[in-house]
């Protein structure tokens, strides 16, 4: 019990740091892939620190309260996850958080934001089945929805759940807003959606959004790591390796693909989920 609370607290304190570093490293790797030097690793942190010091500038005064709610619920998602409680519960809080992000976007009623908000919803619809099925996969393989029990089994989950993992990595590209699935926003403001959901976020609000993203990314990596970690000591370096490999893979995909139409994104992610996770589900249910 004590351990659980400590790890939740550690997540709350350290996740922004880890998230900022991940962001920085990601940008660096991306830059190198494109033959650029790239910004310093701490650049994201510098940006956010500067944004936090600014006044609140927004199209709608209601935006900040929705973004704060989004941030806090995102922190709660991760805290629930890292404290070892029910994984479905944290997924449900995650989806509520995502709804708040959607609200904070539509409330501005700016044209770019509204289209991006609709696409954000399509993204949620595209990735949710894979996330829920991943939880089911854990449950079937470990016999529990509790994160701490899943993490302390005797075997590596991945042996039982490769299909779930494949589907999860596939939709991770959507969740991390990487190309080819960055249909609702991108890191570059010169595209058809301008900056998508973040078009109307500035100053303090943008900082809130970025911090929430950091928390989210750390949570997602944690969920990826849950596929490997178990009671053996060697699983810890292996988990670290897998998480890094996954992260690198996402950046590689980001840099080697052009943005897709949302229709294709939606279709593809449901197909992959159904094929990879669905077949895996069928097999696990049969051998149980």
């Amino acid at each position, binding site marked *: 019990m004590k351990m659980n609370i400590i790890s939740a607290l550690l997540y709350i304190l350290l996740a922004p740091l880890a998230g900022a570093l991940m962001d920085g490293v990601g940008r660096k790797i991306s830059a190198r892939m494109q033959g650029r030097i790239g910004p310093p690793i701490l650049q994201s942190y510098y940006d956010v620190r500067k944004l936090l010091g600014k*006044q*609140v*500038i*927004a*199209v*709608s*005064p*209601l935006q*900040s*309260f*929705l973004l*704060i*709610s989004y941030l*806090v*619920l995102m922190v*709660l998602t991760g805290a*629930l996850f890292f404290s070892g*409680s*029910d994984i*479905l*519960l944290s997924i*449900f*809080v995650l*989806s*509520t958080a995502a*709804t708040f992000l959607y*609200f904070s976007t*539509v*409330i*501005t*009623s*700016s*044209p770019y*934001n*509204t289209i991006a*908000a*609709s696409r954000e*919803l*399509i993204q*949620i*619809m*595209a990735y*949710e*089945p894979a996330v*829920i*099925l991943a939880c*089911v996969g854990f*449950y079937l393989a470990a016999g529990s*929805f509790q994160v701490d029990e899943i993490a302390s089994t005797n075997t590596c989950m991945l042996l039982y759940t490769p299909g779930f993992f494949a589907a999860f990595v596939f939709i991770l590209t959507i969740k991390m807003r990487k190309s080819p699935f960055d249909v609702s926003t991108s890191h570059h403001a010169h595209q058809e959606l*301008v900056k998508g959901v973040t*078009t*109307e976020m*500035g100053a303090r609000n943008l900082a809130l959004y970025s911090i929430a993203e950091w928390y989210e990314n750390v949570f997602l990596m944690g969920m990826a790591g849950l596929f490997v970690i178990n009671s053996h000591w060697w699983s810890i370096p292996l988990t670290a390796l897998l998480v890094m490999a996954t992260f690198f893979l996402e950046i590689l995909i980001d840099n080697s693909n052009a943005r897709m139409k949302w*229709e294709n994104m939606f279709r593809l992610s*449901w197909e992959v989920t*159904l094929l990879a996770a669905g077949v895996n*589900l*069928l097999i696990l*249910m049969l051998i*149980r």
Partner: protein
Amino acid sequence: MAVVIFLICFPLVMALASYLVRDDRTRNLLARAGVAVIMAAVLWLVFIWISGGRQVINCYYDTEAADHIILAVEVVLMFIITGLCCRHRKYWISLLSIVPTLLIAWFELEGPETERISHIQIDHLSILMCLIIAFIGGFIIIYSGGYMTHYHQHHVRIKPRKNYFFAMLFIFLGAMFGFVLSSSLLWIDLFWEITSVCSFMLIGYTRDEEAIYNSFRALWMNLLGGTALAVGIVYYGYFAHTVSLDTLVAEGMHGGEFTTIPIALIAFAAMTKAAQLPFSTWLLGAMVAPTPSSALLHSATMVKAGIYILFRLAPAIGGTRTGMLVSLIGGFTFFVTSIMAIGQDDGKKILACSTVSNLGLMVACAGIGKAETIWAGVMLMIFHAISKSLLFQAVGATENAIGSRNVENMHGLMYRIPMLAMFIFIGIAGMFLAPFGMLISKWAALKASVDSGNVVMVLFIAFGSATTSFYWSKWMGKLISRSHVSGSRHEDITLPDERLSLYVHAFLMIAVCLLLPVISRLFVNPLLLELFGQYKVVLPLEVLILLELIIIFVFAVPMAAYRYSKRVKTNVKLSYMSGINMGDNNSFVDSFGASRKLWLSNYYFSDKFDPDRLMVYGQIMAMALMIVLLCLIVGGILA
């Protein structure tokens, strides 16, 4: 147990009284008083039941006279239906009433002697149903008083028949009480027919072509179910010499003789009533009627009758082929109709699709037939009844105020009619957001389907809940965004009695959400114990406590954040329109240099998710599934 008889008969007296009173004001007052009496009677029933130690109460064993009255009413109903069918030249539909009525009459008069049974049974499930019928249904009647006034101001071409409308609503309540309190299958059959006919009359209220078409569709589908029910009852009564639902379920649990066919037939009937595919069209067509009747059909009565009977049968169908049929059809309906809702922009149609979809989930829970799934199913039923009723009433009031129920026209409703928008918002949040019960029930349903090894169901839930959140969130987004409507405030013409009902529903919604662990422990767990004889805890206490904390957190955070952000000064800027704003957020410079108004709209994908096409495919698939599984069931008996 005179109160039971009172509950069944008093609404009929009220119906007669409302029919005779010609003055609107007097009738509304009368209806309010009547609803208050009904609520008090149900509370009295609950009190008697609790003071009796919450045991199952069986009563009315010898009911010779009542049986004759019931048969007589059934025959009268047959004549009414036949007359109506002849008047509208739908002769074949009357067969669906004549055949089962004659069958039942033959069985009662000439059939074998049946065992002496109790005709009324009061247990947890029927008490729950009574509470839902009396309180949700009752407030809907109160709401109708205000709603119908405006309805006829907007729809001048429709001849007002308010007295008739109220009479139907009250008969409906009475029939529902009878339905959930009876334990004799013959009694159940009568009340079943009454609800079918009542809904037919309510749907046809406006008497225009569409209404008549839809009402007859509802009639034949429900009567088809009624025929299956009657055949099932007579089959069971003829061979097993009893017409007790309890005995049927108890025997069915052990795979007793002669039980498979009646249970399959009753389950089939329940699925027609619960508007499962391929019979969903009747409920979707029912929205041509004035909103209170839709609210009543969708939340407190009618469709819940189908769910109720499936929950009763659940212990007997779990793990059988009938259970497989029920759960597959339910899961399939849940998934298909939730996709169908994406393509709708008519508020009431979205609500209708979502009702069918949620009913699908409940039906699937019943079909799996484990205590855990029934836990989820009962929770779903409670939450769904409240939030759907709230949503229908709020959408109805909105339609009266802005003259449209199209979601696109609800753009910025939060700034135009804040109160109504708030009610819609709460209702929708109740349908799918995290702290509210629907999501928790879905979670339990998912867990239970995994436990029972139902792969298809797990996939249906995973994909279906994704589409569900899509269509709800985009509606919520519409309510809170502004721009092309800013400045145009609408007058809120909601009348006090409508308002009362809306407030009570919203309050109930939040209260039930907060009290979830209490309801689960004190009510639903004993209910399962009664149905199944044994019970395993679905959500352990620590999860429920954690859940409660999250609920409070999710309520508190936005509120605190809202208060905080009010104090912080915001520098408000124009939105980004590539630098061609016309000085505000509502218009921009077009390619001719003229000002053009900005118009924001949602995605509906009507080309990809065409609801009509989906419905046809869904019906064909469900029909095929049903035929195959019915063959399997029959084959299982013959083999």
